[in-house]
């Protein structure tokens, strides 16, 4: 019987995995090791700034295990969404770590590097050509959104990976990728069903998160056959159950039945899940429907600099008057910096009242104490510091009716009290781009490492 074995070591490269799980995963004799390194979940800062949300030490640790194992077994290692956001600086960062590991371990391999950057001028032209559209509840794209984005990266489908495999790559390092494609590429290259391969990839990209108990830092195995696939966690203390696997199909997706991706959508209307052993689930019936080829383009832009302070308040009278105190502090701050109007924004997060849900909080009742985060975002670092500092000292000494504690309203846990968070970014591009060919903007470059 034809079967392909896939090892997904961890949910995100750098999240780690236990040695024992990895060894057990390797004992299954995987035909490919694949790992997703990215996510847009941690917010716009990482794509916008070109930084990674996982530490270099943690990524190097995982890559050392993966490169060693892949070269020992002589199987491909596929890495998608390098450096978290998969744009140029993220790809270079991960490339640098791979080179360092190869040198230290004395291993050699043929590396394919696939970049996912979209040139600003290319996207503008595409926009005027009508090849760009909003993805879901996203505003229409403007020239300014494109110009102001620091980096633009598109999520590649399986085709650039196929090109890398055709070219004899032992290790594939890809920029921003559609998560399931990182896992589905090798099986599709081997002739397996695309719908099943992509659905398997959708589960494997989060590794043992789809197991019970779930974990983002443990290995998951995939076994792909001609008309079904099976998943089983490598760690014997976890199980894959019909519930855990079916529930994961919902995870982070808008619609559980139709999962759109590059070049088409995964259709799960006929998908069936079956418990085949205590720890293994079989899945069949998933199919892929080809559609005009589009990819998702992501971008973030810098809006200024952020400074915050953290304080507690334990005075019931202060807490009782908090809304009017905040309004007063805002008014005083805006008045004090009125010549900078429109260049800064002051915000308050009141933990213990509605810090998590904001205006949607069904019980906005403060308890006996509240945690306050004051946040200032401004066009310049100096202005952000000035606004935050003014708001902090104004709130500390703000007078209100019935005030007893006239020495100060806030308890600061730290000195210094104010924290420079750094540059602040927002998402500026989240749009679908039509491509003439799946490989159009994803060049594959080969290099011989360590030889």
């Amino acid at each position: 019987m034809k079967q392909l074995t896939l090892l997904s070591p961890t949910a995100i490269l750098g999240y780690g995995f236990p040695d024992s799980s990895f060894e057990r995963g390797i004992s299954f004799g995987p035909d490919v090791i694949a790992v997703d390194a990215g996510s847009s979940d941690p917010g716009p800062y990482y794509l916008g700034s070109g930084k990674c949300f996982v530490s270099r030490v943690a990524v190097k640790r995982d890559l050392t295990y993966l490169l060693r194992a892949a070269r020992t077994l002589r199987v491909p290692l596929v890495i998608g969404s390098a450096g978290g956001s998969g744009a140029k600086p993220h790809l270079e960062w991960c490339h640098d770590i791979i080179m360092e590991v190869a040198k230290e371990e004395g291993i050699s391999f043929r590396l394919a590097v696939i970049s996912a950057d979209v040139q600003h001028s290319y996207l503008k032209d595409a926009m005027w050509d009508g090849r760009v559209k909003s993805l879901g509840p996203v505003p229409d794209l403007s020239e300014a959104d494109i110009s102001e984005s620091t980096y633009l990266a598109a999520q590649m489908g399986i085709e650039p990976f196929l090109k890398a495999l055709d070219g004899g790559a032992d290790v594939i390092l890809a920029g921003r990728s559609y998560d399931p494609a990182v896992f589905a590429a090798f099986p599709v290259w081997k002739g397996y069903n695309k719908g099943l391969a992509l659905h398997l990839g959708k589960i494997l990209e989060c590794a043992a998160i789809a197991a019970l108990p779930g974990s983002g830092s443990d290995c998951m195995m995939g076994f792909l056959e001609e008309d079904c696939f099976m998943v089983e966690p490598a760690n014997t203390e976890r199980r894959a159950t019909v519930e855990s696997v079916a529930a994961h199909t919902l995870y982070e997706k808008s619609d559980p039945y139709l999962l759109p991706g590059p070049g088409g959508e995964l259709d799960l209307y006929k998908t069936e899940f079956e418990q085949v052993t205590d720890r293994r689930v079989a899945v069949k019936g998933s199919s892929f429907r080809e559609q005009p080829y589009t990819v998702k383009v992501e971008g973030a832009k810098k809006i200024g600099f952020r400074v915050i302070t953290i304080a507690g308040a334990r005075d019931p009278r202060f807490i009782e008057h908090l809304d009017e105190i905040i309004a007063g502090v805002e008014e005083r701050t805006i008045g004090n910096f009125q010549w900078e109007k429109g260049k800064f924004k002051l915000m308050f997060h009141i933990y213990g009242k509605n810090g998590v849900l904001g205006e949607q909080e069904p019980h906005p009742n403060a308890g006996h104490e509240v945690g306050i985060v004051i946040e200032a975002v401004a066009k310049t670092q100096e202005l952000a510091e000035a606004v935050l500092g003014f708001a902090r000292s104004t709130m500390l000494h703000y007078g209100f009716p019935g005030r007893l504690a006239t020495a100060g309203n806030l308890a600061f846990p730290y000195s210094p009290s104010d924290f420079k968070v750094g540059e602040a970014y927002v998402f500026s591009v989240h749009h679908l781009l039509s491509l003439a060919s799946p490989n159009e903007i994803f060049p594959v470059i080969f290099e011989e490492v360590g030889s």
Partner: protein
Amino acid sequence: MKLVELASVIRTKNAGPFELTIDVIFKDRETYQLAKNNNILNAALIAELYNVPESDILTAIYFDPACAFKATMKRKMPCGDLGENDIYGAQQHAPLLDLEVKLGDGDEHSDS
């Protein structure tokens, strides 16, 4: 009865930076079927709970394979915009925890 008594999972999470998705997984297939038959969760109810127009609810669907209900809504603001208070969208489920639902006639002593 309360929704929390019928569910094994009640969660929210970003579905991309512009959408928030709610998953409710029922504790067993029988409960799920009753919930689905009575349509105890739906777009109008989610809109009311989160105090948003119903047009912000992009999907509201029952998913048989996972005994689950899923609703996806427009995010209050794009992830990470000024005023954000939950980057991952992972703690927006609380309004569902208080929800009282009716499973219809015979829900207490169902022998189906």
